[in-house]
């Protein structure tokens, strides 16, 4: 029987009633890592985190220490923006960390700010996290009071202001640059890169954007060393991660496990398997953006790199949605498409228009009004939204939302292409309709030559 490896969730599990209070946290050794860090040089901390192999827990999985080292030399002020927007459907790990162990997060932020030599950090917290905002706000006030944040932190001479900013509720504010726009008071629209945030981020100053879980991990790395952290995990996916398992499982919830565990162990051993003893239909491995997996992939390890290179999907935000074999994949695909169509920020043409188009077609298909050519149609225009229709996708948009929109449709093609075509044909026959226009070709292009 496999078990969780609790590092950042250990304390909050042990003290379910008061883990967010400063007294309880201090009793557990909170801010010890900060004390140790303030005795190190910023460069040493960056080196330690780089050694740990810690990778961003928001979804992209970029090396945290490496990201910090991209800050241009001698350019100040710098900012740290902590991404607590957690908008990826079915992801609820940051939610828990903010509500139940805010001091761990604050400690990570102070250490990180010291490491990157910044005096001003922002926590961009999802607007819907009312309780989280209350507890984190309280925790910040306590941390200020006890001298863990503010001027001359623990007599080190280091100053840091932390601003808690509550988001106004949209998915794309969780994108790195969308978050920065939102933080500045603009519409949360992603920005073109370069310049990358590390060079020109919030208020045109160098900015590091890190996820809540990433920040919460930093104190443990400082306390116990990068080598220790790197000793866990598999390949380049070191340490532990929190996976939010949801859907048709017996015990949905957050599970912190050592990377390298298999999907089967996570879903069946920890989450108790499919609810009601039904069979597995399919599962989404890394949030709604990721292409789906099925039964045959269950024994693959939770390894960010091999999931991408071999399974052509991603661990993303660590949200695993499990569907039993009675669920209609078309209906799920439509519902996810509806989410993306609603959340597309409207900046890039392919996503703004393509996501809405996809939703309209999938709605028809899932509700008995599909046409035999519809699946090819969405794959046809979808190829202009996620070129290659694979993972990682090609990009015609600024951010990943655009191609992610196509993940459900790509999954339909991967596992149920013939089945869906047959179903659409049956639906059309049942309606007794002549298909709107039979035999539409993909968009290859009846390109009119330029009038030269």
């Amino acid at each position, binding site marked *: 029987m496999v078990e969780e490896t609790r590092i950042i969730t250990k304390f909050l599990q042990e003290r379910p009633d008061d883990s967010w209070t400063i007294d309880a946290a201090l009793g557990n050794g909170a801010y010890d890592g900060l004390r140790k860090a303030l005795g190190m040089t910023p460069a040493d901390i960056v080196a330690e985190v780089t050694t740990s192999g810690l990778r961003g827990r928001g979804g992209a999985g970029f090396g945290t220490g490496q990201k910090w080292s991209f800050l241009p030399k001698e350019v100040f002020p710098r900012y740290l923006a902590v991404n607590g927007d957690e908008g990826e459907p079915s992801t609820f790990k940051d939610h828990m960390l903010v509500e139940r162990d805010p001091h761990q997060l604050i400690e990570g932020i102070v250490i990180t700010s010291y490491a990157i030599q910044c005096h001003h950090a922002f926590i961009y917290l999802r607007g819907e996290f009312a309780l989280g905002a209350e507890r984190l706000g309280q925790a910040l006030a306590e941390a200020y009071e006890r001298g863990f944040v503010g001027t001359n932190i623990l007599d080190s001479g280091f100053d840091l202001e932390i601003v808690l900013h509550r988001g106004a509720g949209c998915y794309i504010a969780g994108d790195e640059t969308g978050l920065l726009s939102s933080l500045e008071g603009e519409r949360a629209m992603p920005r073109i890169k370069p310049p990358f945030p590390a060079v020109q981020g919030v208020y045109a100053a160098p900015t590091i954007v890190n996820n809540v879980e990433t920040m919460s991990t930093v104190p443990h790395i400082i306390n116990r060393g990068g080598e220790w952290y790197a000793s866990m995990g598999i390949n380049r996916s070191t340490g532990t991660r929190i996976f939010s398992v949801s859907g048709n499982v017996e015990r949905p919830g957050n599970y912190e496990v050592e990377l390298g565990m298999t999907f089967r162990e996570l879903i069946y051993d920890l989450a108790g398997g499919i609810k009601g003893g039904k069979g597995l239909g399919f599962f989404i491995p890394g949030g709604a953006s990721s292409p789906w997996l099925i039964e045959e992939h269950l024994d693959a390890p939770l390894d960010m790199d091999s999931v991408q290179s071999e399974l052509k999907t991603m661990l993303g935000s660590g949200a695993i949605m499990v569907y039993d074999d009675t669920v209609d994949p078309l209906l799920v695909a439509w519902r996810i498409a509806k989410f993306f169509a609603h959340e597309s920020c409207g900046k890039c043409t392919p996503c703004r228009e393509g996501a809405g188009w996809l939703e309209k077609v999938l709605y028809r298909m899932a509700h008995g009004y599909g046409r035999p050519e519809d699946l090819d149609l969405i794959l046809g225009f979808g190829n202009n939204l996620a070129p290659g229709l694979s993972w990682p996708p090609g990009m015609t948009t600024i951010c990943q939302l655009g191609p992610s929109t196509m993940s459900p449709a790509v999954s339909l093609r991967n596992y149920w292409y013939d089945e869906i075509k047959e179903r659409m044909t049956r639906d059309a026959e049942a309606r007794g309709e002549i298909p709107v226009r039979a035999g539409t070709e993909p968009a290859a292009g009846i390109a009119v030559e*330029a009038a030269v």
Partner: protein
Amino acid sequence: MSTDAVPMSQWPSEQRYVIPVAPGPELVTLTIDGKQVQARRGELLIKVAQEHGTYIPRFCWHERMKPVGMCRMCLVEVEGMRGMQISCATPIADGMVVNTQSDNVKATQDGVLEFLLINHPLDCPVCDRGGECPLQDQTLAFGPGESRFVEEKRHFAKPIPISDLVLLDRERCIQCGRCTRFAAEIAGDPLIDFGERGASTQVITYPDEPFTSYFSGNTVQICPVGALTASSYRFRARPWDLQTVETSCQTCAVGCRGALQSTSNRIVRLLGVDSEPVNQGWLCDKGRYGYEWVHSDERVRAPMVRKNGELVEVSWPEALDVAADGLRAALDAKGPSSIAILGGARGTNEDAYVWARLAKGVLGTDNVDAQLADGLPAEVVLGLPGATIADLDTARAVVLVAPDLREELPILHLRVRRAAVDLGVPVIEIAPRASGLTRDVTAVLRHAPGEAGAMAEQFARALAGDGTASGSGSIEKAVSALDGRDGDIVVVLGRQSLAESSESVVQAAAALAALPDVKFLSALRRGNVRGAIDLGLTPGFLPGRVTLDTAREHYVDAWGSVPARPGLDAAGVLTAAAAGSIDTVVLLGADPEEDFPDRIRMRAGLDAVGFTIAIGAFAADASAGADVFLPTTVWGEKVGSMTNLEGRVMRQARLVTPEGLTMDDWRIAQELAARLGTDFGFDTVEDVQNEIARVAPAHAGVDAELILRARDGAVLPIADFPDEITFQQVLGVTTGRSWEPIKPGVAADESHLASLGTGVVESSGTGSDTTIKPGLVSADAPEDAAASDAAVESAADLLAARPPLHRWDRAATAPAPAPPDAYSLRLVAARTLYDAGRIVSSSPSLAALATGFALVVHPSDLGRIGVSAEGDDVRVTSARGTITVPVLADAATAPGTAFMPFAQRGPVGPNDLIDITAPVTELRVETTR
């Protein structure tokens, strides 16, 4: 406790990383579709490709705005870079290999266009943009040609007005963000933005706040579809029917280059032309929509003579005879100095010159003034070292001693704003009241009305390092902003308020002119006021920036005679008229009733005049009592040139045939001169231009050929501004597409009319036609540097052989008189963009926008006055008189001062309160209860 390798105390705190705005000078070589090209490192790929003949399709990118990368139409492949790159945000680098034609690129272009069209209504047959639409054109050139979309399209109520002048069709909108970015980045009026998300994304205004920008019309011009339409142009024309000429707007003295368009002999549209030194493609709404007055029913279309107390239509010979007889009678009875000519700032340079010659060379009077006591003394304007508008971009600092530029010279306002916001030029505002630029300037030196001179002196002393200067915080801030910066200080100099004499501003000019490396831009407002002053329609001067005294012999040679003594300015003329020494007045397109700031003096003067000749387009209030009315052609109906506030001579083109029996002003002057015994011998405008070039010192070399051929005109004297002249080798016409920067062409004769919409470059002279891809802006005609250089060289020789140009002797400036003790409030009277002048009141689109008349005070002064609510009437008393007006509160007006918009319609106005000879206007304000 820290063992930091870099001690925390040494972490720099404020060292902002700035992305370089300008590309470096270094040339790099890259390959675009197999062709090697050279361009400056850091230039944007989309621009470099276009300049070398490869048009990359685009919707959101606009050369004058920062790239945003929204539309995804310009994706291309760059070897070595993962995925496709948006060429609008990709700076070029050495060795870059770009493919704009690959299958991937083509597929992406197909895809983006298919996406853009799925929700587009495709109502092209009834769309204003149809025929000149980038979405149409690029679909033709780059699109799939077929849609696979069978769902319901998105629907919105449409069109919705987003301002008084602009309507929005949200179904046509392709969400490129050009309009929203223009409003925020260029205009500084972020009153439109996107609302909603995804396919519902739409341009919105704030719930209670329309898009009330003075620059809103530019969004219509740069919209790549028909989503934004102008209320004045909607459904009026098809683009392929339009006739176009390139001309200069004459609404204010910036002289923005524009493409003026007509159909069926009616002007229907003015588009901004992207003239780098002048307007960079933008127009203000007053200029853009102010063409409507040209066809106003109120125009006078036939000459009139007063018979039995009534003005009746007569033939031109009869009217001219009556006018000439009146002038001759005045000469015979009381001599030349009994005649005065007011106005002339709304005509062309040629009009001004011929009228100056009539006045000074034939009639012999120097009582001539193109300004109506609302400008600056000509000796100051003509005698200060001149700056160009483009000098603002690279100035060490810009100092504003001027009216609110947004209200009076809007495109100059944009240029100063750009210098301040985008180019990091310190801008220092010396003003009695907040302006449209206040929030963007580096330092505000606020002073009481009438005390600009004292404030400028303090600033100048502090800048010169005089420790005794009383250094207020804002002066210190202003001075420190100049630290470590090189270049010239550019002073924008104009009348801050019409409620005070010009002496304080003149004193400010003297103080600032004493600083090293200072140049001046005169912020005079009226259309061709600079041209009129330059060409002698001002007392004490003769055409070409020379004084009567220094150029007397030169002009006696040229003209035969000149006045014996300097004459009177407008205020002097009206005072003399009241005293009886002037009794014949020619109103040359002037309306003292509206424009002269001192109504009592004006009325006393005009009422005493025995014989009035009114020359103009409208029977204005003042000219209604004229004995003779001679109707003139106007802008758009006549050929000529104008001189803008930097002294740039630019060609005016004719587009429509003149209304009725109107005549060019200069021809009227010539006809009158002939009747008085002098034949000027001009057959055409070009004859006048050539005489000006031959005679007027500052205009040496600016002959008809130069005016025709120099793209962007020429700055006077051309020997001092050789780089401002660009000759092109062929005569072309303005080309370009209305939604992209329209490149200035050489203004051809109006027989070379071309439609902007076709994208066809027509060249005369070479006989070659170049047809270009839809959407492609023409490459500029090659420059003819040899011709430009030759023109400048010969002009320098001519200039040296002529009387010296006037230089202002600032040492002779008397200190401004001390303002009297305060009553309660001191008045600032200034114009707003939309006033009751002819351009606004006779243009239906603009008429309703007039500001309206009120007394504006600081909120804290409301209570002091004893007013309970805004809008209540108050009784306002100055030394001159009492009027009753509603009172409004606005924090832009400093406590202790009051603001009144000038020239608003109504029976009373600030001109009832102002004594133009007094240094300031003090007001006592009481409630009417």
